[in-house]
């Protein structure tokens, strides 16, 4: 492990600046923005999982006072172009979707018509009066059934529901198998989740007919890509669309794609020449926004008698739902790509299938690769169990060590400056495994079930352009920033990211302050308005700090150079050698000490803007600097989670007794914000693993469309999380930043499964399926009883 780097502002635990407005009710979320005369929409949604639209009768709805009109897929098809996804990826079928369905609906909740009315109450009344004649079709609900040769086709332009299929092999997997002491097979079945940002989706579209310009107010993580999509689908140019993202009440990946409802609202605003708004209700959000995670995996590990993994095979099937807002291989490929993560495995093969079903379409949800660490660490635990070895030892035997770095994974991914063995030892040491084992044995003697899980995570955080190119996905991983010192010496800055609640304003100001040499108080970072911010790729994955913070840091450094060049001239020096900007003052190094020159940033700014003839030759007026930066193809952070549980055999309830994470995410901009992300990610992972579940019945009816049915963990169910921070800098990124925010989910899912299986191991139970609900634990205990195990 390398020591953390030293900085003046980066890494300081400053409290967040957005807090005051949120704490006093002055945040501005989408619904807080009012435009006079705005109309409201409500969507008519399919009650069927799969049905042809025979006719839509809107007469009664239109007759309702206050209704402006009812529009269908046919109307939208005249005003917008379909979304076509056809990246040149082997094994991936091109797909296309219209703005609203024209011929058939594909899942329960699919929007089929839209009502526009004076207010939301009337729009909802009218939506109920729209009558649709349906011709119900057989549906494909389970991914396995959907692959049957006679399964109903979700997308009739495809030869089957297998929308994407890739396989890969590196090294000699067959050889590893034949030379192995044992081949250990393990299964993992992760259920369907949804994002549940506390603020649902919504938008407010304002068409200015005189200017032929659309202003779209929408909580989006990716303002510029959103603008590009809107313009393209509406047949406008990018000069005709402004996207403004207000404060966002959580996104978690749900606020990236341009959804059909949002495009519909924009098209209606233009068609009607009036502002039009939509606020999704919670039922729509749970049923029809986007879903995630439903994935089954099988691994086969060829191992030596001491648990060393000679070869690993993965079979993965993801249930993608009915529509592709992203290339269908997008999430699954990352799982397969980074599966081997913390371990020295070179013989590796995968087979990845993505299947369409009649359910809500998938989207990336905070940690699209969420299942990865469960699959890898669960495989390690199975190996330990089958061979009768200590799971901690099996981890140590296989772990990548400092001397292995940089380590090339079998998929070609390069790990550098990661510390999986160090986080493992830190977590195992802190939890004190031997003492736990003693307690566990004592508890067992009393008939109590205690378990310990360990889960090491290697989290892909920042995806550079090199990644996208290699993946065949159009797009870039770069980010863009500008830093502008105004004539009075204060600093405005901007970047293409848009936070959805993480608290970017403070850490990004710290990155600018560090690069420039001012106090963070002097800096204001502007985000979310495409007319203000430079074209950037926005917020997704764990790229905020490396791509966003890194770009701002580099841009601020460039601005500092210009400032010092001017200052040197003001001081009659030949060049900026031996000068620095520190806390807004130009300082000069004399005999080792930094001494004030009496020149402040405001003096330099005044000269740059208001007295440009006094600038050194070749220096242009103004202090306005911009820069783009493309991170390495991938950066990685790593962590080890450790969790102790006790299972109540009578109720099946899992109680988390202790939870800790040793996490190495390199240089952090602001440890307060990072800790918040770590806690939040673990919480979301545990909530998903233990409680949340999107449920469809066999007819494709969504059974979990209220928050009473889709259960998000409350304060009573979640533990306090201890964090052991580690900061090995990445040698290839600005300031050594690595990024983070998703690994906590990967670790939480893996570690809770490990802990539960450790607790149930004496009963011969191995749980392969999530969620780990009391009902499912009880079912396992009952079947263990039946087969002669102890009775609870």
């Amino acid at each position, binding site marked *: 492990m390398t020591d953390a780097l030293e900085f003046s502002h980066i890494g300081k635990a400053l*409290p*967040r600046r*957005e*807090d*005051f*407005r*949120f*704490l*006093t*009710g*002055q*945040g*501005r*979320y989408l*619904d*807080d923005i*009012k435009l006079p005369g705005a109309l409201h929409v409500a969507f008519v949604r399919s009650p069927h999982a799969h049905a042809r639209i025979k006719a839509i009768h809107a007469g009664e709805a239109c007759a309702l*006072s*206050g209704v402006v009109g009812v529009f269908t897929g046919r109307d939208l098809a005249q005003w917008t172009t379909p979304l076509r996804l056809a990246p040149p990826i082997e094994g991936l079928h091109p797909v296309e979707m219209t703005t609203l369905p024209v011929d058939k609906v594909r899942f329960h909740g699919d929007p089929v018509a839209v009502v526009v009315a004076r207010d939301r*109450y*009337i729009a909802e*009344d009218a939506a109920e009066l729209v009558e649709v004649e349906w011709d119900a079709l057989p549906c494909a609900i389970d991914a396995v059934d959907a692959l049957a040769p006679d399964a109903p086709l979700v997308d009739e332009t495809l030869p089957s529901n297998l929308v994407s299929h890739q396989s890969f092999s590196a090294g000699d997997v067959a050889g590893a198998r034949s030379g192995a002491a044992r081949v250990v097979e393990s299964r993992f079945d992760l259920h369907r989740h949804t994002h*549940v*940002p*506390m*603020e*649902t989706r919504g938008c407010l579209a304002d068409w200015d007919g005189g200017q032929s310009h659309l202003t779209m107010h929408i909580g989006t993580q990716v303002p510029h890509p959103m603008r590009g999509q809107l313009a393209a689908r509406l047949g406008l140019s990018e000069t005709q669309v402004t996207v403004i993202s207000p*404060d*966002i*009440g*959580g996104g*978690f990946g749900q606020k990236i794609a341009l959804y059909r409802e949002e495009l519909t609202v924009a098209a209606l605003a233009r068609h009607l020449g009036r502002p039009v708004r939509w606020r999704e*209700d*919670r039922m729509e959000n749970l049923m029809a926004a986007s879903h995630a995670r439903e994935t089954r995996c099988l691994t086969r590990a060829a191992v030596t008698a001491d648990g060393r993994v000679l070869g690993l095979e993965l079979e993965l099937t993801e249930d993608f739902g009915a529509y592709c807002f992203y290339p269908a291989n997008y999430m699954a490929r990352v799982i397969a790509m980074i599966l081997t993560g913390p371990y020295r495995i070179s013989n590796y093969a995968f087979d990845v299938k993505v299947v369409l079903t009649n359910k809500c379409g998938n989207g990336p949800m905070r940690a699209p690769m969420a299942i990865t660490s469960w699959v890898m660490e669960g495989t390690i635990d199975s190996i330990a169990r089958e061979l009768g070895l200590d799971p901690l030892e099996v981890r140590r035997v296989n772990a990548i060590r400092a001397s292995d770095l940089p380590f090339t994974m079998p998929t070609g991914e390069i790990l550098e400056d990661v510390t999986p063995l160090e986080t493992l030892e830190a977590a195992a040491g802190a939890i004190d495994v031997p003492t736990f084992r003693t307690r566990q044995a004592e508890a067992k003697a009393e008939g109590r079930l205690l378990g310990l899980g360990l889960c090491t995570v290697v989290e892909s955080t920042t995806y550079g352009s090199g990644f996208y190119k290699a993946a065949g996905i159009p797009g870039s991983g770069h980010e863009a920033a500008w830093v502008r010192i105004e004539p009075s010496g204060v600093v405005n800055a901007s970047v293409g990211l848009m936070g*959805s*609640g*993480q*608290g970017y304003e403070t850490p990004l100001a710290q990155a600018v302050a560090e690069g420039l040499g001012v106090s963070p108080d002097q800096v204001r970072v502007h985000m979310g308005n495409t007319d203000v911010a430079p074209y950037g790729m926005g917020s997704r994955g764990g790229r905020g700090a490396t791509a966003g913070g890194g770009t701002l840091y580099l841009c601020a450094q460039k601005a500092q150079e210009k400032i010092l060049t001017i200052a040197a001239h003001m001081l009659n020096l030949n060049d900026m050698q031996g000068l620095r900007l520190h806390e807004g003052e130009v300082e000069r190094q004399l005999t080792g000490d930094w001494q004030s020159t009496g020149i402040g940033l405001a003096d330099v700014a005044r000269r740059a803007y208001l007295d440009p003839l006094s600038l050194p030759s070749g220096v242009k007026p103004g202090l306005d600097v911009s820069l783009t930066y493309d991170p390495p193809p991938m950066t990685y952070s790593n962590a080890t989670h450790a969790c102790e549980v006790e299972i109540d055999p009578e109720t099946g309830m899992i109680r988390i007794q202790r939870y800790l994470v040793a996490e190495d995410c390199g240089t952090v901009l602001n440890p*307060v*914000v990072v*800790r*918040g992300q770590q*806690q*939040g990610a*673990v*919480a*979301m992972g545990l909530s998903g693993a233990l409680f949340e579940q999107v449920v469809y019945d066999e007819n494709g009816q969504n059974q979990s469309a*209220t*928050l*009473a049915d889709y259960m*998000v963990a*409350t*304060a*009573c169910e*979640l533990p*306090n*999380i201890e964090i052991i921070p580690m900061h090995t800098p990445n040698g290839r990124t600005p300031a050594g930043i690595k990024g983070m925010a998703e690994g906590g989910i990967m670790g939480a899912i893996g570690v809770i499964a490990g802990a539960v299986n450790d607790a149930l191991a004496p009963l011969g139970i191995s749980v392969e399926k999530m969620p780990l609900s009391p009902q499912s634990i009880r079912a396992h205990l009952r079947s263990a009883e039946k087969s002669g195990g102890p009775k609870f």
Partner: protein
Amino acid sequence: MSGTKQIFLTVNGETHEVSVPPRKLLVDVLRDDLHLTGTHTGCEHGVCGACTILVDGQPARACLSYAVQMEGHELRTIEAMAADGELKPLQRALHEEHGLQCGFCTAGIVMTFEAYLRDNPEPTEDEVRDVLSGNLCRCTGYQNIVSAVLKAASEMREEAQV
């Protein structure tokens, strides 16, 4: 359905005359008619707690009642907290403990504990968690909210002693 009713609503000490359809939810009237947008809706079915306000000093879900039912009651919303620009102890503690991220759930939590800490100045962590379980937060994992509430409680006790 479109008939409206003239009512008087007392919010944050001020009485407003509004004309609203009888079926209009309290939360919508607060937000649309009175422009008090600090109260949020996260579910509109009484589960998430984002819309929590005080009705006669007791926490209530503004998405579960109609504005016309509120005549003669004293309503308080987040806008009344720190109206003078000074954060109250719980708001300050939430800031210091990083007890909020996106902030969407925050107003409901502040209002819930405004009432709770008034009546229960010395809560345990378990009690705080129990009360907090009526407010969903998708961002924080609750840990820092709990520590903020405990910190605010102890500060308020100290203040009360001075």
